[in-house]
């Protein structure tokens, strides 16, 4: 499994002002850099591949609309922009769950799905259930715990990278990771009936 290429401060300092001026090439470059990351984050949050893809596009549409008012922190440009983008994604995930809760009162048709990479229906069904349980468990975490889990297991960052990204110490990251995994393990075992 290839580690995602880290995004440097220089890239962000170069791209964000151009995006604020409406440079289409810069917007597309930013999209290419962050799209998969945001997609994985949203997939973990909503547990549905199609919905995660749509929400990913929506995150970047909102980025275009709100970028003129974004103030880039020159001390930690990549971390501040990434945090801002993940905050937009997190708000959209919350909105998604609210809408879904309302819809569940009306219809039971909606079934979140993971990408059907395996033709075996049993495997596909197992993936669906697993993703659903994971997304529900992640919903129970705090935002900091969620971001540490995303950074460590989805983005495969080191502790120091996550610490720099979130503006925390490595010790705090380890502690957050411990509490998050503790909660996730407990929740997953409950939902799996173990």
């Amino acid at each position, binding site marked *: 499994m290839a580690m995602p290429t880290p995004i440097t401060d220089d890239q962000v300092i170069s791209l964000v002002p151009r995006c604020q001026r*409406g440079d289409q090439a810069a917007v597309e470059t930013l999209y290419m850099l962050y799209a998969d990351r945001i997609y994985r984050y949203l997939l973990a949050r909503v547990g549905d591949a199609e919905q995660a893809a749509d929400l990913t596009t929506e995150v*970047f549409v909102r980025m275009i609309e709100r970028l003129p008012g974004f103030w880039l922190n020159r001390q930690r440009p990549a971390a501040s922009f990434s945090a801002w983008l993940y905050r937009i994604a997190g708000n959209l995930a919350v909105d998604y769950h609210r809408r879904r809760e309302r819809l569940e009162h009306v219809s039971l048709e909606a079934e979140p799905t993971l990408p059907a990479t395996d033709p075996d229906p049993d495997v596909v069904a197992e993936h669906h259930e697993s993703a659903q349980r*994971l997304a529900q468990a992640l919903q129970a975490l705090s935002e900091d715990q969620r971001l540490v889990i995303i950074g460590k297991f989805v983005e495969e960052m080191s502790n120091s990278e996550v610490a720099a990204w979130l503006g925390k110490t490595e010790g705090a990251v380890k502690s957050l990771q411990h509490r998050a995994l503790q909660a996730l*393990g407990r929740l*997953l075992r409950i939902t799996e009936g173990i």
Partner: protein
Amino acid sequence: MMNVAEILDECLARLRRGETVGDCLARYPDQAAELAPMLEAAAQLRGLAAHRLSPAQRLAGQMVLRAALARRTSRRSAADWLFRPVQWMGWPALAAAVALCLFVVLSVGAVAASRPGDLTYSVRVMVERAPLLVIFDADARASAELYLAERRLADVQQALQHSRSADATALRALIRSAEAAAGAAGGLAEAERLQVAARIEEHVTQLERLAATVGEPAAARSLVETARQARAIAVQLRAEKPPALDPQRPAPTETAVPSFTPTSALTATPQPEATATLTPETTPVRSHGSPVPQPSRDATTTRRPDLRPRQTEPRPPVSSVTPLQPGAPITPTIRPTHMMPTPSATRRVGPTAVPQPATVAPQPTAEPPPGIATRRPEPTAGPPATAQPRPTEGPGDPGGRPPDITPGPPPEPRPTRRGG
């Protein structure tokens, strides 16, 4: 001794390097029960790292973004305009401008809300005088100064209620406004001047009442002293002489006609005998059979001695009435046919048929016959000075009224109307 968080972190690193969950749990048998669910959850999470957007999803996303970017560039949102000053000025300059605006607003608020004793009260007093800089009319200026004086008086009352002290700034400002009001009123008519003086005296009364009720001796002394100064201003204003009449102004008829006095002289010193004897021969109108002397154009053309005072030379009434001493030559003048401005005036002057030069009596008017003379108005009921002919309608005035109504005394004199 590692805590669970550190053991977990080390196990996660081993899992990343390829070890299994069982291997990790075997390394830490004491913590295995606690680590197992966490490592299983981590293994599920690691599966997410393999997911990526498909090329089709990526392309669709790019198309949506291009459309969104085109919308944004076509319609400049309000936020762009809102942040444009930031681009021009930069954040520090914008913050300084906002801070300056806040300072100005707060300062104005503090000055407007200041009370006697506050640091900003002097500023408030000064600012409230600013409108006077553009008031040039004396009447309006006096009113504005009196209004300010009343505001200062209210401030003094407020200070007495709150701190039991008479604020010196307010008292000084009060006296200043009173002085300025008096100065502005000096150029006004007497009635207006007296009104200003009366309002200043009202302030004096209020100051004295406050001085009587305040418990603090120092405050009472200040109030009494201020009342004394204000009273002096009012007294001086009352004592001022009325300003000289503006020659440009139309002079009141009453004051400009000193020739009223002849009437009073005539009425005060009635000599009925003389007038009764003179009248038959004097008035040519009467010679035509009219019981009442009727002036006419003919009469105006005849030169007769004129006993009426000349309007162009106001003189004391006595001198105007008694220029002709017995035996003195009478200078005939053209009869003032045009000098009777109103019927009322003519009535009082009466039959001005002048005695003939041959007659000795220098009486100003020839009285009607006895029957008519009885209807002559009594001196007490005589018209006041206001009814006298105006100087502008004096002898020789071509614009004067026709004389046909002048000499005839009306049967019913109406002194009340003329006296009004």
